[in-house]
């Protein structure tokens, strides 16, 4: 009983974190057709910014997070202008974007080290509420993660479904050339998408930074898990991403519980490789679209 409740809580927490990361990656992938290898570093940077606003600015943690999201939006615009759009239309552009976003990771990591120093930081918990359901306990930042992540990603799905900008994003995903002929400017949509994705990553970073620590390399693991989520859920579908995030969260919680922390990632990644081999378009994806 105790084991199961631990597994349930960590599935929901991990699933929430991975969902926040993977939803942004999915959005970027389906509109821009690139994988953002800098997403983990952006998450880390967002966590540090939150910490600064909280520590130096003296703001409450939720306000600090909002401020960090706004600041990261500016960085997101620069990111799109400098790292994605110069390469995306070139022949072989997807490899250039991959290399550029890897370089961006290094840039952000060393930048964080220069700005914030080698000392590890931590954010305070997001509130002190505690909820217990059938033996499974979640409190503070865990509870916020469990609730906020599906809320934000659900909100994103709603925006995509119901609003004008959402319609534009979906149109560009589905038929780029015809979308342009309707007068849609791809660049504006790209900037929107990148900014939203980075905003979600910032939230993930702040949540992780309050449950664990903030360090320049903190984004690496969540980024890799988010990639696994994409492989499982299909890289272009938000519903697949949500389901995939909880599935990977569950897999990781179970394997960590039974096999320990060092074997869990190995099993998770082996699962990814197997999925990519047997069903490259994603296990949870029903509608297959040619890439």
């Amino acid at each position, binding site marked *: 009983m105790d084991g199961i409740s631990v597994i349930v809580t960590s599935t929901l927490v991990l699933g929430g974190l991975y969902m926040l990361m993977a939803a942004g990656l999915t959005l970027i992938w389906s509109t821009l057709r690139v994988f953002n290898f800098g997403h983990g570093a952006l998450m880390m940077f967002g966590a540090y910014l939150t910490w600064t606003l909280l520590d130096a600015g003296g703001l409450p943690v939720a306000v600090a997070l909002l401020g960090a999201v706004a600041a990261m939006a500016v960085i997101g615009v620069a990111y799109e202008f400098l790292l994605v759009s110069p390469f995306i239309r070139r022949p072989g552009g997807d*490899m250039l974007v991959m290399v550029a976003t890897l370089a961006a990771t290094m840039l952000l*990591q060393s930048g964080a080290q*220069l700005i914030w120093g080698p000392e590890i930081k931590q954010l305070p918990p997001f509130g002190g509420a505690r909820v217990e359901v059938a033996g499974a306990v979640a409190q503070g930042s865990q509870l916020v993660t469990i609730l906020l992540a599906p809320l934000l990603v659900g909100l994103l799905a709603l925006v995509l479904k119901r609003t004008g900008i959402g319609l534009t994003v979906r149109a560009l995903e589905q038929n780029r050339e015809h979308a342009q002929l309707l007068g849609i400017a791809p660049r504006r949509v790209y900037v929107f998408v990148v900014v939203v994705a980075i905003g979600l990553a910032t939230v993930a970073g702040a949540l992780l930074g309050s449950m664990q620590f903030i360090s320049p390399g903190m984004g690496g693991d969540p980024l890799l898990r988010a*990639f696994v989520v994409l492989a499982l859920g299909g890289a272009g579908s938000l519903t697949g991403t949500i389901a995939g995030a909880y599935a990977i969260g569950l897999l990781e919680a179970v394997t960590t519980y039974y096999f320990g922390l060092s*074997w869990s990632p*190995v099993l998770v*990644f082996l699962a990814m490789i197997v999925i990519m*081999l047997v069903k490259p378009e994603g296990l949870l994806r029903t509608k297959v679209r040619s*890439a």
Partner: protein
Amino acid sequence: MTNLRSWAGWPVYATVLVALPLVFTDPHARLLLILFTMYGVLAMSWNLTLGFAGIFNFAQIGFFGIGAYTTGILATRTGIDPWLALPISGFSALLASLVAFLPVLRLRGIYVGLATYVFSQLCIYLVLGQAGLTGGSNGIVGIPRLSLGDVNLRADGRIGYYFLGAALLFAVTVLVRVLTRSTLGMSLLALRDNEALATSRGVSRVRQHLIVFMVGAAVAGVAGSFNAFLNGVVSTDVFGFGYLTLLLSMIFLGGSGSVYGPIVGAVVVTLVSDVLQDAGAWRDMVIAMLILVVLWIAPKGLAGIANSVLTSLRRPRPPAPEPLPTTSKETV
């Protein structure tokens, strides 16, 4: 004529490699020379898949690390002749490349990048998980040095390591050159530029890509072994982001489409990195900026710049492309 010109370069190349340590005798300069050779070997081997075959192979750093760990384990836990560790490490990296190649069977393009990148990261977790064998996060220390007869390769400013590295670099240069000019090389270019056409002409993508993947991996494994002997220690750093970005900057600065570009890139980036070695995080910052600047202004790297300079020197004015005869029928 072209043959003569192309083969005359090799003795010159060999002579330069032999002469370099005689000119630069200072121990630090010698160390840099060794690093040139090691990074040159690695960058060239990676460029086989990344540049020539156009495979999004980001597992190369994993092969390098696997080679290093193979040597570390063999040299500290078995009584094996250290020299044998070099080829065995190449072989173990080759075996690993068979696993890393699995995703390439069914995936294309950026998806391969994703899977192979994850493979490299997976290596770190495996090493940490097998702490009994690999030393976990402490790494492996006390790897015995290589010696030839009674001469330790460390003697005289590590000159032995330099000549070993230079020999490897020379061999790999010849290998890459021969490979790229062979029918294998041609078919790789064909697959990269027009896969549908190439496969319709009977080129097997999987077979050709597997060959070049294995060759590249074996070379990286030997380089990893060399690195282990040179440093005497192995840690999970060999799989790390530092090596990955360093090598990417070498390849893209030198020119990912060129045979020799990555060697030039290795030399330049090694020097830059050496100048900045006390600058801490600034060093990484500069390397990352270097990659980005090259991608922005010269996506074909130094080799591309050199090529266009050479062409413009040879032909002051390129002739206008010949217009097609107007009577020709265009087909759809």
